[in-house]
């Protein structure tokens, strides 16, 4: 089972303690009424879905309960880094 490092608990915990929260760094538009349909489509539905490093949200449901972000390689499922929500994506080797 994959071990995930929770940046708040500062522990490697098994993946069943966590739930996945989708792609990270998708900010809700500041002025939603100003968006046209195409921009709403992008916000709601268009996702990066990369083959390689992917910035994504996770929640330590059975631990501290808090959301954090991670960069994980979608080919190997290896977690490269985890970092607190609200901080920018760190530079990773890949």
């Amino acid at each position, binding site marked *: 089972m994959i071990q995930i490092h929770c940046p708040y608990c500062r522990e490697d915990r098994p993946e069943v303690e966590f739930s996945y929260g989708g792609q990270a760094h998708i900010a809700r538009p500041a002025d939603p009424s100003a968006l046209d349909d195409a921009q*709403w489509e992008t916000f709601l539905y268009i996702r990066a879905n990369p083959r390689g490093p992917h910035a994504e949200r996770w929640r330590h449901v059975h631990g501290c309960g808090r959301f954090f972000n991670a960069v*994980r390689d*979608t*080919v190997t499922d290896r977690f490269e880094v985890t970092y607190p929500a609200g901080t920018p994506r760190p530079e990773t080797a890949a």
Partner: protein
Amino acid sequence: MKRFSGLNLVAEAFDGHRGWPEHWPDKAPKAAYDAVIVGAGGHGLGAAYYLASKYGMTNIAVIEKGWLGGGNTGRNTTIIRSNYLYDESAHLYDHAVKLWDGLSQELNYNVMYSKRGVLMLAHNVHDVQSFKRHIHANRLNGVDNEWLTAQQCRAYCPPLDIAPNARHPVLGGALQRRGGTARHDSVAWGYARGAVARGVDIIQNCAVTGIRRGPDGAVQGVETERGFIATGKVGVSAAGSTSLVMRMAGLDFPLESYPLQALVSEPVKPIFPCVVMSNTVHAYISQSDKGELVIGAGTDAYVSYSQRGALHIIEHTLAAICEIFPIFTRMRMLRTWGGIVDVTPDRSPILGKTPVPGLYVNCGWGTGGFKATPGAGDLLAYTIAHDAPHAINAPYNLDRFRTGRLIDEAAAAAVAH
């Protein structure tokens, strides 16, 4: 193509079966084709077959980065059904089920379509209400689906535990008798053989590396590992890799790719007469003609291209199987595998034209693409040949994510996602 028949079989037997030709000889790509299909799974090969047999385009190629039928076509649980809630879905999936009927005869290749019935179990009041709504909606669309009581479910599928104190009590089930299974590899092989017999080139081990577009934006051809292939029409049927291929044409797609796992047990004598699905607990089960129990799970939680999944997912599925069918608790599992499925926000496929002229797409089948194989192939072929979608796949356009006209089978919960 040398036809399979009793007479030919006997004649070949006298000559050591040396007269059978190769089903799909390995071809080097030509410089240009009228159309190129990306992805030699069941859907892509089906599209090539129907383009050549029904729509009169024979100068076409199917290119595949791996080997024929080596992706999700060879990695699924082979369930066929069409009991979807919405009108658009019922028409789409039932188009496929109608084509499954007679497919073996048409292809002269036994795809082993077995109408053994698909039974979907209701475990709670919500399931009962939802399934009965499905049954009524299906009947209005001419799709067979009927309600069985718990006792009738057990009569139809004897290994089922319907004890009222079971962990997952069975309150009844929805049975589609035309549903069933088919031999997944045979579908790919049969379509490949039929397509090649009509002049289609199948080029394996040849990944697409780019899609070339002209100044007007239209497709001019595909860049591949074995050179450039000029063509005005490209049909992409690449399942979990679709968003990668689409990005080569400059398109961002509303898709995410997840592993979907399945596993088989050791082979045993016939014990399981039908397909049983339990959406609430994410488990499907049937028995193959070889005797293995074929068991499918829900998707893994996160985006991945790893073609394997997490053990706790199938552990959860097997726990449910053991609760519903206590007779299987001592079965041993032989193999597990994962396919990468491309999931759309509304869990319905995208099948039609794209904003790029000459680029067509068949994707987003998520966890349930195998059942649609003949229908998806036929409709992709129709769309490519006519440069316009058929009435059946017209609602499955890409625009629906902008207009909001979704076909929300995710909310209709026709299946565990």
